[in-house]
């Protein structure tokens, strides 16, 4: 795959744009089972990221990812801030001072991101959170790479798994986050955080597909 730092930066900007485009949608989902701010929170965070990225033109991949994480942690405002912030930070720490990312880095980075989110939020699959989209996605990615698929193909499998994960959250009761206060009334609604995870992965996949 050979993703340069400048392409990584463009990919993160593309993710930010999709978050901005889905601000109302994500907020609407959060209004059903939360405090109606997920899209607003995420858009705030990625707006700050957009301003920050141009200052990192000469940085390595790990520094870019860590800076995105630090920025999200201090600008998002909701639970998704420390969660996605920790995800980017851990991915950056794992990947380190590379100038070019390969498929294996995508795998390492996403595994580190998932572990960071699970540790920070103490959520497991079935709690109706980000984890319900991200964990199956990470597993699908790994499986595809092991089967010899390209990074773009493997990320495609991850996107499908994340989409199924979002669908799965409709049928379960929230045990973490704001939605857990609703108990059974959280049934029938898809989780906003799982949805933003799906959108981010899909954007990454589309970005890779465009350049190959």
């Amino acid at each position, binding site marked *: 795959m050979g993703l340069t730092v400048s392409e990584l930066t463009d990919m993160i900007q593309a993710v930010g744009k999709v978050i901005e485009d889905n601000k109302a949608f994500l907020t609407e989902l959060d209004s059903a089972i939360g*405090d109606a701010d997920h899209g607003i929170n995420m858009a705030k965070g990625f707006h700050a990221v957009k301003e920050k990225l141009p200052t990192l033109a000469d940085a390595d991949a790990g520094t870019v990812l860590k800076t995105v994480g630090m920025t999200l*942690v*201090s*600008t998002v405002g909701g*639970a998704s*801030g*420390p969660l996605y*912030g920790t995800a980017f930070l851990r991915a950056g720490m794992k990947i380190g001072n590379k100038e070019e990312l390969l498929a294996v880095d995508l795998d390492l980075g996403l595994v580190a991101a998932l572990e960071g989110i699970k540790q*920070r*939020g103490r959520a497991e699959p079935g709690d109706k959170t980000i984890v319900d989209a991200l964990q199956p996605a990470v597993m699908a990615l790994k499986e595809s790479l092991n089967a010899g698929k390209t990074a773009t193909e493997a990320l495609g499998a991850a996107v499908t798994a994340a989409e199924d994960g979002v669908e799965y959250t409709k049928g379960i009761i929230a045990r973490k986050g704001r939605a857990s206060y609703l108990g059974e009334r959280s049934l029938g609604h898809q989780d906003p955080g799982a949805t933003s995870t799906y959108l981010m992965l899909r954007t990454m996949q589309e970005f890779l597909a465009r350049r190959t």
Partner: protein
Amino acid sequence: MVGLVIVSHSASLARGIKELASQMAPKVPMAAVGGTSDGRLGTDANLIKQAIEQLAHCNGVLVLMDLGSAVLSTETALEYMPLEIEDKVQLADGPVVEGAVAAAVESSLGKPLAAVKAAAEAAAALKKL
């Protein structure tokens, strides 16, 4: 004395809890932190980190939090704190209002961090009726 940091989604709620707890223990160092830097309801790991650092001179710091991201942001703040400060900080797993009052009283009596934390957490079991 042990310093107290009150973390809430709302800046006015954090300030109000601090005010309430200070009334019974005016000498206890306290910091209130709430909301985002652009004035929304929410939490900001950076602001929490600064509030804890303000009290780093104390004989330990206890952080009392409201819900959800208040806890996640506080834990994130600790991760980026110099180790010598992080070692002095504990998080209270108790109700933020009653816990802050109980902790303030305990701290004003010159009790160590572990006792102040225990007082805040015991507030979860206090019966009102």
